[in-house]
Structure formats: C-alpha cells, structure tokens
C-alpha cells in the first residue's frame, strides 16, 4: 500500500515537474511546479515525517503563489499572452538535467543503503532535527528568530514610502497634493508614446516624470 502510494506520488512529482517545461503558460508552469512539490511533501508524509511533509507543502504552495505573481509581472512577455516557450538553453539544459537525473538515479541504486537499527523513534521529526543539528540546535533557534526579525524590520524600513511614494495618508497637506499632478504628467508622457501608434507595443515611453510623490 505504502509502496503503491509512493509510486503514484513519485510519478506525479516527475510528470508535473516535466510539465513545467511542456506547458506554455506561466500560470500553468508555476502551478505544475507547485503540484510537483506537493507530491514530494506528501511522500515525506509516508516517511512518518508529518511535520516536514506538511510544512513542505505549506511553504511551496505559498512560494509558488507569490512566484506566479512575480513571474507574470517581470517577464518581457507579461502575462504570457503570446504562446510562450518555457525552454531556454535548449541543448545544454536537457543534457545537464538528464545527466544529473541519471547520476542521482544511479546513486539511489548503487549506494548500499544501511539497514534499520533499533526501532522507529516516537517523533521522527525531532530525531531528524537532532541528527542534523545536534548540539547546534539552540544556536539555530536563536538565528531563526534573528533572521525573522531582520526580514520584518527590513521590510518595514524598505516600504515606509509605500508602493508609489506616500500612500500613507497621515500628515498629508499641501505638499502631497502635488503628487497626483506629477502622476498626471507622467501619464501623459506615456500617452504621447501611444499617440505615435508605434505598433507592437514597442513604443518607448519617456521615463515617467513622477516618482517623487512629494
């Protein structure tokens, strides 16, 4: 039963991983990758590593949800309306990835895996953690707290201006009232670009004049 389940999950993981390069939509590629990770997380559950498995699913789905937004935002072909190939480096990439896959597969088969000694621990997740971290556990816990605080603090500092200058309403006055006008000017710059009807969306809009909200 477990082996059958593992086989299904393995196939799902590999097939959806391959699907990332087959589909030509960024949304589908992203969520194919997410599905692949979910299958990997689920196979961790089979090892009785409940926490690690569920957390893998949690983190990966979250990551992919954000990655989809960023991919679509930053690609030259935004939102991928054009049929979009997910392939780059058409010759090198298959060679490298195929080679690595074969090497890892060979390792799985060739390495003499140790026999189980003793019994399954009551909490395998804890056992794995102690096996990996050992005496450094306290340090790692401390570091994680510091890292998290740093991330939050950096975000708060970096985004104090908001997405487009002062989106914070507090303390506005006449100064801020000019923001929208600058914005307006910028809009018209872009507009002028349209006026040229340059075609194919390649018209170069002049650099937006706004940016300084105040």
């Amino acid at each position, binding site marked *: 039963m477990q082996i059958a389940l593992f086989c299904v999950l393995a196939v799902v993981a590999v097939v959806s991983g391959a699907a990332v390069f087959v*589909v*030509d*939509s*960024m*949304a*589908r590629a992203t969520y194919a990758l997410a599905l692949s990770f979910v299958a990997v997380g689920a196979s961790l559950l089979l090892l009785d590593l409940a926490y690690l498995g569920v957390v893998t699913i949690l983190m990966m789905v979250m990551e992919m949800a954000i990655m989809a937004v960023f991919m*679509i*935002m*930053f690609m030259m072909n*935004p*939102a*991928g*309306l*054009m*049929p*979009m190939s997910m392939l780059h480096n058409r010759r090198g990439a298959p060679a490298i990835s195929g080679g690595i896959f074969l090497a890892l597969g060979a390792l799985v088969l060739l390495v003499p895996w140790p026999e189980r000694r003793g019994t399954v621990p009551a909490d395998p997740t804890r056992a794995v953690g102690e096996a990996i971290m050992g005496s450094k556990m306290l340090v790692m816990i401390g570091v994680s707290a510091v890292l998290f605080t740093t991330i939050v603090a950096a975000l708060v500092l970096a985004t104090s201006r908001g997405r*487009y200058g002062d*989106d*914070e*309403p*507090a303390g*506005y*006055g*006449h100064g*801020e*009232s000019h*923001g*929208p*006008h600058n*914005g*307006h000017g*910028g*809009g*018209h710059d*872009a*507009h*002028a*670009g*349209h*006026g040229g*009807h*340059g*075609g*194919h*969306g*390649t*018209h170069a*809009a*002049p*650099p*937006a004049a*706004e*940016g300084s909200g105040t």
Partner: protein
Amino acid sequence: MGLSTALRNLSGRLAAPAARVPHVLLVVCPGATAVRLAAEVAVAGLGGRLADSPTEADVLLVAGEPSQEMRAATDVLWGQMPGPRVRAEATRPQDAEPVLRALLPVLTGRGQEAEATQRDDEWGRDEEEDGHGGVHEDNHGGHGGEQRSHGGHEGHGGHGDEQRSHDRHGDHGGQEDHDGGHEGHGGMQMPGGLMMADRAEDRDGLKLDVLHVPLGPVLPDWPAGLVVDTVLQGDVVQRAEGRVLPSAGPCPPPFWQNDDDHLVAPEARTAACHLDSLGRLLALAGWEDAAAGARRLRDRLLAGEPVDAVRADFGPWRRRVERSRTLRWATDGIGVLTPVDAARLGVSGPAVRARPPHDATARWLRWLTETEEALAGGKVPDGGPRGHTAPDGSPPSRGLLDVAVELAPGLELSAVRLLVASLDPDPDELAAAPEPGRAWEEAEKEPRQSRHDHGEHRGHEEHRGHGEGHGQGHGEGGHGGGGGER
C-alpha cells in the same frame, strides 16, 4: 425517465422560487436619474438586489431611453448574462415597478428554454464545445467562418489544439476592450481576437504591460453613462480620460437641480442628493448597511415625508457614519483637491467647502454637514447641490469630472472608484450641456483627443461610434469575455 427529462423537471421546480430574489442589472441612461431612483425602490420592494456584474444578473433593466451608444453597450451586457434572463426598458419613473413586476414571470416561464437553445453567441458554442471534449480553438475559429466574419478571428484557424493552454492569460481580458475601442493602438493580433498587451514604464522604472480598460458606462454605483477610459498597470491607473455618453434626444433638466416647479422643497432635494452621493460612496466602501440607510433616508425625502421626521432619523445614522474610523481609513488621502486646483478647474459646491486636507474623507464629511444644514432648513448655498455654473458656462459637474480624471493617475482601481464617488459628477448635467474646451485639456491632451474635446459632442461620438460601444460594454462586464460582437 431520461436524464434530460429529469433535469427539466428539476429545472421547472427550481424556477418558481428562483424568481423571488431577482438580481437586477440596472443600466441607467444619462438624464434618467428619476427613473433610476424609482427602479432602485422597485427592486428593493420586490425583494431583489442590484447585481454587481452582468454575469450575476438575471434581469436587465434599462432606466431611461438609451442613446445609440448606450444601446450598444446594453446589448453587450445582455450577451454576457448567462440566462435565464429577461430585459426591459423603463422610460418613466412610474413605469419602473410595473415593468419589473411584469418581467419576473417571464424569468421563470418556459420561454427561457427556447431562448437558451436559440442563442447565437459564445454560450451556444459552449455547449457544442462540451460535446467535443474541449477542442476549443478549432471550434471557435470554425464558427467565426460559418456565422459571421469575426474580425479578430482571422489568423486563428491554424492555431493548433495543442496550444490551447497558453493564450488565455487573465490580464488580457482588457484587450477585448482594446480590440473594440482603441483600434490602432499597436498591439499584435492574437489568436482569439485578443491583442498583445502594450507596455509602458512603471514608476519603479520597470516596463510593465498596460491594459486599456474603460470604466463605465455601466458599473455598480457609478454615474450613469460616464465613461472613464483608463490605462491600467495591474490595478493601478496610469492614465484616465473621462467623457459622458450623450442622452437620447433632448435631455431634461438635471434631476437634482433646483427649480421651483417641483413638489419637494429645494432644501430637501439637496439633502436627498447628498444622501444619494453618500449612499454610492458607502456602497463602494463596502459598507452596505450604512449605504442602505442613506438610500432609505433619500427615498423618504423624495417621497415628500416631512423634513423634521427624516431629520430625526438622520442624526443617529450620521453619527454612526461619522464615527467610523475604518471608513475614514478607507477614504483618507484619496484625491486631495486644493482650493487652488479647485478654482483652476472651476469646481464649486461642497467639494470646495470641504476642510483641509481636502481629501475624499473631507468631502463626505462635508456632505454630512450640508445634509444636516439642508434638513435644518438652511438655504442651499449655490443654487444646486454640486455648486454653481462655472464662469465659462459649464455645469458644476464638468469641473468635478475634470478633477476626478486629473487625480486618478497613480491610484489603485479601488481608490479611483472612491475618488469618483467622493466627487460624484452628475452625468445629467454633462449630457445636457455641450462640452466646452477647457484650458488644461487643451494644454495636455494629445492632438487626437483635444480635437474631439473641441469638437461638437455628437461628432465625437459618431467618430468613435460603434467599436466604442462594445469596448464600454466589455469594460463594464469586466472583460473581454463574450461580448455581443464576438
């Protein structure tokens, strides 16, 4: 009993209760404020609710007499309604209720099935597609050939089935609008008649894609017949231009304007007008309860109830709204209109009298104050709820619309909606009056636009005519979804 018979019986059994809560898409024509008010009362009276989108609706009610452009937009919306569906027009306030009442039985009647099978739009195609197990593209293209020449569908046929997955990317719903309304904007023709997105600079220096999305002429809680053509990056408006569709035939004097030959006193009418604006703003801010309260007070005033009685109920309602910190938080900082800019754009009325910081919050607070004053019997300051006529003869709403269009760039869609609602230009005034050329437009608009703005209003409409109607309809429905022309 076959499955289809069983389903039909079930459908019949479901039909009767389904008409008890009709979802009404109310399409208001410029100049038809009185009909709109009557229709809103009628919808609530019949236990219905106003739909957010055509997809949600099963009743399409046109308030007022639609002009050619409005009619085109309405047809697109009609095409987007899933069905069972019914449509009708009410041109006089007293018609609204009987017309709605007469529609409801049709909604549940047997005729719906016949209509559904005869539909010749993408809905009809849909069923066929399901049968074919989703050979979508080919079908689509084939139909283009068979039924009529779908402009955008040429170049589509060779598009293989295996490529189905890629080209339906959400962003590009707006490209439908593009297709309809802004030909020649320079996108690449895409399978399915969609256009490649334009790109433009983001403020962060990135080059991101832009969509051309007209807001209006039909949107929930949106001034009737107003169209704001926007360029969107994500949900941020980068550019906006406003116009009002003309009314069909001669426009009656604006409903809210103070004239003496009306049953309800000018003060009560002004108060009702502000309550109407407040109701719209509150509904957009997502506070349905408070919005419903405003509308109830408005309807009572217009029904001729003694002002004192209404005033007694206005007080508690006002305090509740005024005290809401979350509401202030939602509208704070949106659309700061300094006195200098107000004077430049010819704005008068409550929007000018709003206190510093002159933002949307200040404006709705001002409405509350002036409503109270009007209910207390104070004289209406300018002769009209939105101010007085500008020196160049344009109605007060012209200035308000100019402000909205000027302040919109850089705001998110939700903020733009709140901005427009906090100014609430009245299309009745704009549809009635010819558009005068305005200084800032002359200075800043590109030549094509300014020519239209100077041109006589009619000519403007005719010039962009047909395609535009579709574009607007799509914008309203929110997508390029299946418009009537498709």
